[in-house]
């Protein structure tokens, strides 16, 4: 078992009239090097779940595990483990507080008590990892950057801890198409080359669906689906009923199938849709 939960339940404000069960008996596992999407409506428990996965919240009952450790247990181990699980919040650049990009990224490594030379190594390494030339950027003010660059610096600030797992909440909110493309390309490369594990919460599946190998669907605090993307996105009417939107290419293919064309509808990127429609034509010509 790499990272996951076992019968995890979380109740906010237990024992008060405002008590609310945000997670209800949730069990799943994500393997090392996996790329998982967590989807669900607002209020379905996504944020509560990811905050358990790096120990920010403690279970009301059940367990959260990572690499053989139980995150719910008390002790000094937790801090050490938490470093291996990076969490990037929604609009992370809104939390910037430093005067230079160097200091922004150096904050976490310095908090680890690392030597300043090691801190410097980590900052430069993290910036280059996100495709920004260190020399050109370290002395600049974070607010001088474009929206896409700010998001990359926020990511570098977490990568400087050299995490094994990266959890991102709605990572592309507010980014334009090219900013989104650059971000996902980076995540895909960290996943493939460094075997980094990804857990991403998002409402916008069109670009990220093709990268994933697992999709978790939450509804009112319960895990209602867990499986391969093809399987989950194939259950289109159920997703729509839950107020979720399957990837738009899957919608187009499903509409074609409904009109009597013999196409698969478990398709969620443009190139696969193109190939499938072409296959149909070749099939007919034969």
């Amino acid at each position, binding site marked *: 078992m790499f990272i996951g939960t076992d019968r995890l339940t979380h109740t906010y404000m237990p024992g008060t009239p405002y008590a609310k069960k945000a997670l209800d008996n949730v069990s799943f596992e994500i393997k090392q090097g996996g790329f998982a999407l967590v989807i*669900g*409506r*607002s*209020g379905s428990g996504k944020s509560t779940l990811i905050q358990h996965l790096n120990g920010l919240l403690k279970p009301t009952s059940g367990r959260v595990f990572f690499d053989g450790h139980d995150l719910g247990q008390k002790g000094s181990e937790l801090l050490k483990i938490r470093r291996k699980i990076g969490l990037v919040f*929604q609009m992370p650049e809104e939390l910037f507080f430093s005067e230079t990009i160097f200091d922004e990224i150096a904050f976490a490594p310095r908090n680890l008590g690392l030597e300043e030379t090691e801190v410097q190594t980590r900052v430069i390494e993290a910036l280059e990892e996100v495709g920004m030339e260190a020399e050109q950027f370290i002395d600049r003010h974070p607010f*001088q950057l*474009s*929206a*896409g660059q700010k998001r990359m610096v926020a990511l570098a600030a977490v990568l400087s801890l050299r995490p094994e797992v990266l959890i991102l909440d*709605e990572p592309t*909110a*507010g*980014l*334009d*198409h*090219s*900013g989104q493309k650059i971000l996902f390309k980076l995540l895909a490369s960290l996943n493939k080359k460094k075997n980094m594990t990804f857990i991403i919460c998002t*409402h916008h599946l*069109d670009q990220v669906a093709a990268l994933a190998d697992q999709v978790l669907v939450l509804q009112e605090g319960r895990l209602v689906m867990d499986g391969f993307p093809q399987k989950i996105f194939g259950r289109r009417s159920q997703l729509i009923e839950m*107020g*979720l*939107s399957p990837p*738009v*290419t899957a*919608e*187009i293919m499903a*509409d*074609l199938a409904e*009109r*009597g*064309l013999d196409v698969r509808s478990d398709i969620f990127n*443009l*190139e696969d*849709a*193109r190939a499938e*429609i*072409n296959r*149909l*034509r070749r099939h*007919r010509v034969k």
Partner: protein
Amino acid sequence: MVNRSEIIIEAKDLAYQYTGEEEASSPALSGVNISVHRGEYIALIGPNGSGKTTLLKLFNALLVPTNGEVRVEGISTFDEENILSIRRHCGMIFQNPDNQLVATTVEEDIAFGLENLTLPSAEIQKRVGQVSSVLGLQDLLQQAPHMLSGGEKQRVAIAGVLAMQPGCILMDEPTAMLDPAGRNDVLQTVQHLNSEQGLAVVHVTHFPEEAVMADRVVVLEDGRLVAQGSPKEILGNTSLLHGLGLQSTAAVELASLLRQDGFDLPEGIITNRELVNSICSLEQTD
């Protein structure tokens, strides 16, 4: 009836330069000429940093131009004494509704702006009643705004603006933080207000699917207005959009790939339905 030849917002030779930057940076906007007509729905698109938000803020007198002039219902935004009147004619909806909800109940929140106008309380009650029924908020009036879903919060924010009886609403990525159901909820509401009540809309978005519903799509790049036209003209022009690092709707993108493969698809396909219809009719005639 709405007289669509009337102009609500007129911007002439507009330029804006943010101050405080160390280096002489390029202006956020320059040489922009644009008019918003009564009852018109404009989608404003462009890469991050192209000046979309700056333009909205200039329309709303949150910023005043460095060069050129903006007139709202004939009043110049330089006219400080009439700034409140400009904002009443032309209300703003931000990306995150949490940033613009201020009161402890939905009812008080909708009434907040009206109370500041020192209207008689009977008139305030009448208007709150009207807008809450238009926006389907009647049953939520006594609720605390922070307990609502994202889509509901955004509808409350719209209600607060609508209660001021504006001729135009400005929306800066109003669905970026919402789940798919919340997003549909807000988009349908805005479409309804536009078509039934003749409210003009200027809608900044990164989602090409949202630009489809506009009367006119306006494209900004590096602070300049580089193209404008109907959704079919602009969204159908993939070379323009790709050149700016933007993408069109999935239907446009897929149609353009299929045309490269020799599919004889007509021009002007921008929605899923149009694409599906065209592919099906090809299959039938072949």
